[in-house]
């Protein structure tokens, strides 16, 4: 930090120049340090800032005073945003505000929305999702925002056609509207939206009680590109057959009719006939993928992605998909029943340009499929094959040999061993690798991955008990960009692994659940070095106590979520955590050292809490008034009644799992 001298040498810099520098600073951390350099920089940074995500609603008044020209206001970390706050915001950013996210906020009403809409005339994006209390009157407020282009109203259950009608009339420039789970909105409202808002590009109508009646207006929209009709049970073959679509749906690029059980291949062929430009088709959890269904896709000459998750798939159907005269980029067969080696290998041999393939839980496939995948689809970037338990370890060697472009690989619960991992390590672009419940892998395989895959950001080693400190330390040194690591129930890791991981400055998520050997010392080193840490799970780390919490409270200022269940943390540790400003979520089950008084104090001290999981026995011990007070601040209590569980041996755990599956 510079010493303040008069005159400040930085002040000779032109404002534009500093702004250009600031434009290049992407990290919020570096912006912070920039602004703490001197008053001049502080002022400039405040002036320059366009996007804000306040940590708590209490800070908003001072934030408004400091930052003068915010365009993008993300209030997802402020559960408690009331009308007063909103009117302050509306007043402060009357000219600049363009986007407000209120999806996680509660306590505001239609008045606040009205204030925003009326004052902030440049508002183009508004997210009001999860505002389950908002009624039609609030939509009258929304409708005043005449320049709105994007509006999310997910889960606004009290809103009806009337409210949506107001929005339709008021917000004529809408390009995106998301009405997922707005169960009060039906045909009339959607129809009116489609009639009035001609600019619509994207509509999410998932789980609405709509029927075919509104579809004809929707398909008349001239610019519609993205239509989500997930779980619209009211739309079925019969109704689609009765529809006459004129000149519509030509622009549609993405169509999602997942979960529409009443649309079979007949309805689908009707839909595909009118929307010939669809690039991405989501048919998840729909009718069985039979020959006729696959044939109905023939009309879609631009098709690139087909998502069939959860469908029953016949061999004929899958083969027909293989025979489509287009080249798919993405195919998802996650949890599809009936995917056989023969059909799958035929499909992949035909679509050699596949980039993404998801065969999660296709339990029938063997190395035969994997061989054809590896041989045909050389340009795969994402392969997800969790729980393909029949695939033998040798198959993974082939994947490593052929698919060099893999960036995402999910091998959870598979038979892969070190040899396979060594081969897969050739995929140098890997950024996400999931090796959960792979009991055959050891430090050797992990080390080879660490050596080659320097871009790794996400590593899941959940219950892969063969991995020890050595493997983790190799990862820590080989993958400096690591952001997320899950070493839960890797029972042999110790503090040493944590010391190594503390070299990863970008580490955000650390799960070491059930790592019995880890102590507060290891955690302290993580806390001190990984300043970005925001999620921490130390459940069942019996050796972590208050001495681990104190460094956390000092250094991990970004910590949002922590699970302390079964650990040895007491009142003191918990209270010290209250110093973390953005702590939102904690789970405290079976904390032996915790007293109701200490818990009450911690609950009061943590102002930003949104969710707390506690044992039900504590409920009666906490003052009712306190609970209500904390709830009024925006916190939700989840009372759990779990019995104390002793830890199982990993092998034993897997056997138990397999028993459950049968």
């Amino acid at each position, binding site marked *: 930090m510079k010493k303040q001298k008069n005159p400040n040498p930085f002040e000779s810099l032109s404002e534009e120049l500093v702004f250009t520098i600031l434009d290049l600073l992407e990290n919020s951390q570096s912006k912070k340090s920039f602004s703490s350099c001197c008053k001049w920089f502080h002022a400039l940074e405040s002036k320059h800032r366009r996007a804000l995500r306040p940590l708590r609603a209490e800070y908003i008044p001072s934030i408004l005073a400091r930052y003068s020209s915010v365009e993008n206001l993300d209030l997802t970390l402020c559960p408690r945003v009331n009308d007063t706050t909103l*009117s302050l915001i509306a007043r402060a950013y009357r000219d600049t505000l363009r986007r407000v996210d209120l999806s996680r906020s509660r306590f505001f009403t239609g008045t606040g929305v009205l204030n925003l809409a009326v004052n902030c*005339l440049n508002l183009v994006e508004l997210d009001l999702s999860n505002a389950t209390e908002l*009624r039609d009157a609030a939509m009258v407020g929304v409708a005043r925002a005449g320049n709105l282009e994007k509006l999310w109203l997910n889960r606004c259950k009290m809103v009806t056609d009337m409210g949506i009608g107001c929005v339709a009339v008021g917000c004529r420039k809408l390009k995106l509207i998301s009405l997922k789970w707005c169960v009060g909105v039906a045909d009339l409202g959607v*129809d009116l939206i489609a009639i009035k808002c001609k600019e619509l590009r994207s509509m999410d109508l998932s789980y609405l009680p709509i029927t075919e009646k509104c579809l004809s207006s929707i398909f008349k929209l001239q610019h519609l590109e993205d239509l989500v009709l997930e779980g619209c049970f009211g739309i079925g073959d019969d109704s689609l057959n009765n529809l006459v679509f004129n000149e519509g749906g030509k622009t549609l690029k993405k169509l999602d009719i997942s979960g529409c059980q009443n649309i079979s291949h007949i309805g689908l062929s009707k839909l595909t006939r009118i929307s010939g430009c669809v690039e991405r088709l989501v048919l998840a959890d729909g009718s069985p993928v039979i020959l006729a269904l696959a044939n109905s896709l023939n009309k879609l000459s631009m098709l690139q992605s087909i998502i069939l998750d959860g469908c029953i798939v016949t061999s004929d159907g899958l083969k027909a998909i293989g025979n489509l005269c287009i080249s798919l980029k993405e195919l998802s067969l996650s949890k599809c029943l009936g995917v056989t080696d023969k059909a799958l290998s035929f499909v992949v041999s035909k679509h050699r340009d596949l980039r993404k393939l998801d065969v999660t839980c296709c339990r029938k496939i063997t190395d035969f499929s994997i061989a054809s995948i590896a041989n045909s689809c050389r340009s795969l970037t994402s392969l997800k094959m969790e729980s393909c338990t029949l695939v033998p370890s040798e198959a993974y060697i082939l994947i490593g040999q052929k698919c060099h472009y893999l960036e995402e690989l999910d091998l959870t619960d598979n038979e892969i061993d070190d040899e396979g991992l060594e081969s897969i390590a050739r995929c140098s672009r890997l950024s996400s690798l999931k090796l959960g419940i792979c009991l055959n892998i050891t430090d050797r395989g992990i080390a080879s991955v660490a050596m080659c895959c320097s871009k790794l950001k996400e590593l899941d080693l959940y219950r892969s008990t063969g991995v020890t400190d050595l493997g983790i330390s190799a990862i820590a040194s080989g993958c400096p960009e690591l952001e997320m690591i899950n070493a839960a129930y890797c029972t042999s890791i110790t503090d040493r692994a944590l010391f190594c991981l503390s070299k990863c400055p970008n580490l955000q998520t650390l799960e070491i659940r059930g790592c019995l050997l880890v102590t507060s010392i290891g955690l302290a080193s993580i806390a001190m070095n990984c300043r970005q840490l925001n999620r921490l799970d130390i459940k069942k780390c019996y050796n972590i106590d208050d001495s681990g919490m104190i460094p956390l409270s000092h250094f991990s200022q970004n910590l949002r979520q922590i699970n302390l269940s079964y650990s040895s943390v007491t009142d003191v540790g918990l209270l010290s955590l209250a110093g973390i400003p953005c702590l939102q979520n904690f789970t405290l089950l079976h904390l032996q050292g915790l007293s109701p008084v200490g818990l009450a104090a911690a609950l009061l001290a943590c102002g930003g809490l949104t969710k707390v999981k506690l044992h039900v026995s504590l409920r009666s011990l906490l003052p009712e008034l306190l609970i209500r007070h904390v709830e009024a601040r925006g916190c939700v209590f989840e009372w759990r009644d779990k019995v104390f569980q002793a830890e199982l041996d990993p092998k034993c755990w897997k056997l138990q799992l397999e028993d459950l599956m049968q």
Partner: protein
Amino acid sequence: MNPMGSLCANNWARSSSLLPHGNGIQTNLCSDPPPFYGVGIEAPFKEINQPSQTQSVIPGESNKDIKIPDQETGKLQDWDPSAMLNNLSFLEEKIHQLQGLVHLIVNKKCLPFEQPHELVTQEQQLITADLTSIIVQLISTAGSLLPSVRHTLTNTSPLVGQLNQLRGINLPFGSGASNGIQPQNNSGNKLFDQSIRNDVPNNNCDMEHNHNMEEHEHKDDEDMDEGENLPPGSYEILQLEKEEILAPHTHFCTICGKGFKRDANLRMHMRGHGDEYKTPAALAKPHKEIGSEPKLIKRYSCPYAGCKRNKDHKKFQPLKTILCVKNHYKRTHCDKSYTCSRCHTKKFSVIADLKTHEKHCGKDKWLCSCGTTFSRKDKLFGHIALFQGHTPAIPLEDTKGLAEPHDRCDTKENSTILGSMNFCFGSNPSSENGVNNIMDVKGNIDDPINCFSPLNFEGCNFGGFNEFSQPPFEDSESSFSFLMSGSFNYAPKSGGESCSDNLL
């Protein structure tokens, strides 16, 4: 249609001797020439050279039809001197009646104003009505004396005024080939307004009309006959006086439309329409049609000058029944004196309308910003989809739970919406200033600071706030070019300012 057309043409042909070669057939038919207006001149002329089935039917054959005998006898009597004599004596009788009435009037006028005024006027009305009917009968009977007019005229009673009207209507026919016919039509009282019921009974057109009549008879809405398209003159036009319409009568003369409180009085009145009503049977059952005597289609005219339902209107659309007349007159030209006992806002002039409304009052919960209510949501949404600037109005109770300022805002909004319907239709740029001024005035009256004070806005620049309302106003020109007056409440043009208004 063709048979009729040809028949009509035959009539002309004979009278004007334009087409002598068709006479052979025509003589048969022209003894009972039907009037026809609906068909143009061209068609009939074509038909003449190739007679259709109907045309070639000899009178004996047409006897098969039920109504024919009547007409046949009538036809035979056409030149019967005894019938003529009958008519003359009828005329004499009528003239005597007329004399009596005039005497009555003279006496009434001589009397000092002893009777209450109401009674006098009522009596006068009665007399004039009787007078009219007698005169009408006189004229029609007199007309029937002329050799070329059909016997059936005796049964009909066209109004004097109608004759004039018919002259006008006939004019188009005068053009072209039928020029020579016109003078005869007018001078000779060859009434084209004869009912088509007097036509040859196998006339399809006639049947259709009968059918229509029956269909519509039960509907008392005067608008029902919009699409009827009766050719002008193919029906008889009756016009009741205002007092007549508004009198609380329940029994109406089927001939002249006069209303009576008691059926007995009506029957007494009916005697004046001719001897056939004097028979005991007619007196006992006045409403039953006498025998198979064909009747003229009657349509009614509204006495209100300038009304579309008035016979003098250019695009005159007649009313179907007396009930239609009554309802139309009350609805259109009278005060709405019945107020709904539930909502206390809706007013009606016809008590049946009030009752219908009261049945549904309160159920019309779907409200548009323009103040229109709908009993069905889809109707409201159809309305909103159709009109620009209209928006669903959220019921007040829905907004009650909200915080204070908004609540007030909403109330105000709704009330303005409802109240200001006639206020600045279509805010095109020229009228914007007007709106603006009004907004400004409002802004001045309602100090915006007050409304935001509960929200702790000390130190906010309200001047700027007011200024800010302008740019969006201009912005909205394109998207809200057709703003209803009420819509300035939600159109962004009013911006912050209107909010401040609303919040107060």
